[in-house]
């Protein structure tokens, strides 16, 4: 339920609905977009970034929260661990298990590898399950992979790596088919044609959805398939360091059992990093849509093992995070709400941006509306936001559309006595996605022999801004490719002697740069939200 002063403003939003129904806000030109980004996008706040002082990306700028961890101290003492006496010995170790990890594990096994999955939380606890809107694939007759390519490049400001985008768009329809064969239920018409929607920055309707539970549907099917295929997995066991061999190749990883606090040594011929995102670092103090484990661990470990990172100075702030009620601050209000016809509206009940511009553009426009034009609305807790006029969907598409297409959103707001079929939603940008990450080729291989990566922890596919529906797509396209490639690599590789020498080397480098005493231990593993302000001292037991 909204407080009275917001209810009052909602009347204004309602009064202007008829006018907005016929109003068309033009798309911005490339120059206007550029100016908007430079003026208001959080990536352009210089003081939020810092240049890295150690490692292969030395000199590259990245948010200070990430820089601290990339320059962090190892959590292990190499003198106390013997990497040559492993607890597990496998061909392919998959670290992290969202959509990319699950796809990679399935394909690695199909290609003959003995696979082990290690995951920080439970199998499938990942940002994948929170992806609501859909998965892009150019499969309608009026669409083409070339069009998908152009949309993706434009969304990424033409800086995406062309080879990766090519693979993304060409593999997309077969990824959708693969998921269906595993039993994913896509939204379809009775004649079998896919029910597809447009999204921000897409020129043609190509979002495949499963109500607004798309990622959840994909993940629960993949997780079930992992169990059917009896692929080994260890839950609550994040990786905290890599093992290399004396040839500089991947030789395994050290995991931490979060409950017993024991270390687990895994010998592996290849590793696939599918560790996901970064949201729980709360870059620039933004709230986030990300799951509890999204702390950039994969970037940290890959970086320390010598893997190159790219586009680490660009984050995606989802334009529509919830700002009211406080209980769901920062949680995702899916882009599908705008896809279906909801408009963004200021305190005067007027639109200020075409709702289906790419995400970085819409985000900047909302920030401008609130910070500069002071046409946002304040919540009782002091947050600013603008209206996302959800009821417009039923006006445009007929009563019942919201209930049918957005059950998760309706359910979430109903808990707080807000009926989104009748009342607008208050939103503000929220930290959503890391556009950059580990540099890979089209097979998911990195510059470190034996180290593969897929999904959100990689960079290049999305350039400087990811489009809606390309994230879930990327999981399956590159997850499968990396799984296949890692299995093949594991068959042929000549193994050397496992060593943790690179950790000693890293610590020396940190010391040399004068950072060893200043930086935290990394990877971060989990955020710490436990309140400790009562002055109690904690005791190890």
């Amino acid at each position, binding site marked *: 339920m909204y407080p009275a002063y917001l209810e009052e403003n909602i009347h204004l939003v309602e009064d202007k609905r008829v006018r907005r129904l016929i109003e068309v806000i033009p798309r911005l030109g490339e120059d206007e977009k550029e100016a908007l980004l430079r003026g208001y996008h959080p990536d352009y706040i210089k003081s939020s970034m810092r240049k890295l002082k150690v490692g292969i990306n030395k000199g590259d700028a990245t948010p200070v929260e990430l820089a601290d961890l990339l320059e962090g101290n190892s959590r292990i003492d190499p003198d106390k661990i013997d990497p040559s006496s492993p607890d597990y010995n496998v061909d392919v170790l998959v670290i992290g298990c969202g959509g990319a990890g699950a796809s990679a594990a399935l394909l690695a096994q199909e290609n003959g590898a003995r696979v082990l999955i290690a995951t920080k939380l439970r199998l499938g606890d990942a940002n994948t399950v929170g992806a609501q809107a859909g998965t892009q694939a150019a499969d309608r007759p009026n669409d083409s992979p*070339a069009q998908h390519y152009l949309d993706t490049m434009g969304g990424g400001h033409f800086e995406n790596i062309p080879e990766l985008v090519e693979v993304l768009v060409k593999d997309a329809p077969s990824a959708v088919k693969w998921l269906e064969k595993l039993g994913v*239920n896509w939204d379809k018409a009775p004649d079998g044609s896919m029910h597809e929607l447009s999204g921000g920055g897409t020129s043609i309707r190509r979002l495949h959805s499963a109500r607004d539970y798309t990622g959840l549907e994909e993940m629960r099917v993949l997780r079930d398939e992992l169990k059917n295929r009896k692929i080994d997995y260890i839950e609550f066991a994040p990786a905290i360091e890599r093992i290399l061999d004396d040839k500089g190749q991947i030789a395994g990883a050290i995991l931490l059992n979060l409950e017993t606090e024991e270390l687990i040594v895994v010998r592996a011929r290849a590793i696939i990093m599918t560790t996901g995102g970064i949201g729980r670092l709360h870059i620039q103090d933004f709230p986030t849509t990300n799951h509890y484990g999204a702390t950039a661990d994969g970037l940290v470990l890959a970086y320390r093992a010598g893997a190159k990172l790219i586009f680490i100075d660009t984050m995606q702030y989802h334009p529509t995070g919830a700002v009211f009620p406080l209980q769901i601050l920062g949680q995702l209000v899916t882009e599908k709400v705008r896809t279906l016809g909801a408009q963004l509206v200021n305190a005067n009940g007027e639109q200020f941006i075409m709702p289906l511009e790419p995400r970085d553009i819409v985000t900047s426009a909302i920030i401008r509306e609130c910070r500069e034009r002071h046409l946002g609305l304040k919540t009782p807790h002091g947050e600013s936001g603008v209206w996302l006029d959800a009821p417009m969907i039923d006006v445009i598409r007929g009563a019942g559309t919201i209930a049918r297409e957005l059950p998760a959103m309706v359910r979430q707001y109903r808990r707080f006595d807000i009926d989104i079929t009748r009342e607008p939603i208050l939103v503000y940008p929220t930290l959503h996605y890391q556009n950059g990450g580990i540099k890979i080729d089209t097979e998911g291989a990195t510059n470190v022999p034996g180290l593969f990566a897929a999904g959100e922890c990689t960079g290049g596919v999305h350039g400087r801004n990811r489009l809606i529906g390309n994230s879930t797509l990327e999981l399956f396209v590159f997850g499968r490719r990396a799984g296949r490639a890692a299995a093949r690599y594991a068959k042929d590789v000549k193994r050397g002697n496992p060593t943790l020498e690179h950790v000693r080397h890293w610590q020396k480098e940190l010391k040399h740069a004068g950072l060893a005493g200043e930086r935290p231990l990394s990877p971060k593993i989990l955020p710490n939200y436990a309140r400790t302000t009562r002055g109690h001292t904690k005791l190890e037991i």
Partner: protein
Amino acid sequence: MAEQARLIDIYIMGRRCQVPEGLTILTALEYSGYRMVRGCGCRAGFCGACATIFNFLHDPQLRYDLACQKTVEPDMCLVQIPYFPARKATYDLEKTKADAEKIKTLYPDIVKCFGCNTCTKTCPQELEVMWFMTDALRGDIKAVAEKSFDCVMCGLCAARCPQGLVPYNVALLCRRLYGRYLSPNSAHLDQRIAEIESGKFDAEIEELKKADKKTLRQKYTGRDIEPAHDQAWE
């Protein structure tokens, strides 16, 4: 808000804690000093990691919800369920027939349902769990898929079933069977895959890959935009 809000008493595994009104169960746990390892996932109501059982100091009736979505109330006594050993049948989907017999073979216990409706009353997603279990028994796979679609697989239904059934896993089997065998085939998808394999788009994409930024920008700005709302798929 934390400091101004009214404090209420809640009982975390029996221990009395004072927390500000308006927190969720999850944030109330964290406010009380607990750092979560199990029992916390997406923090947005999608992953089912934070299944929670609670009642009230003067009302023993058990209730169920997701800790990240449910707001704390005065005198709430709560505990999270870190894990529940629910059974999952393993099967090869490619060799599994989409019929009632197969469901009963994989989950023979479903015939033991005596209709107590505890599962439905337990579901934090407010799904008609008992009804879709009845559908499963009858072999109406489509109905199960439809009614169970919003399941986040928190496992509370299985934890509470007096007969030891696992509704959320039965429903997942049915949805997979429906998606694989019963949902209508998309001809346009198959055709596009064949076209891509035949190399139909290779030249066009190659040209885009080679184009300089300026050309690409022009093509991008000049591209046709299909109207978002002209969708008569219903």
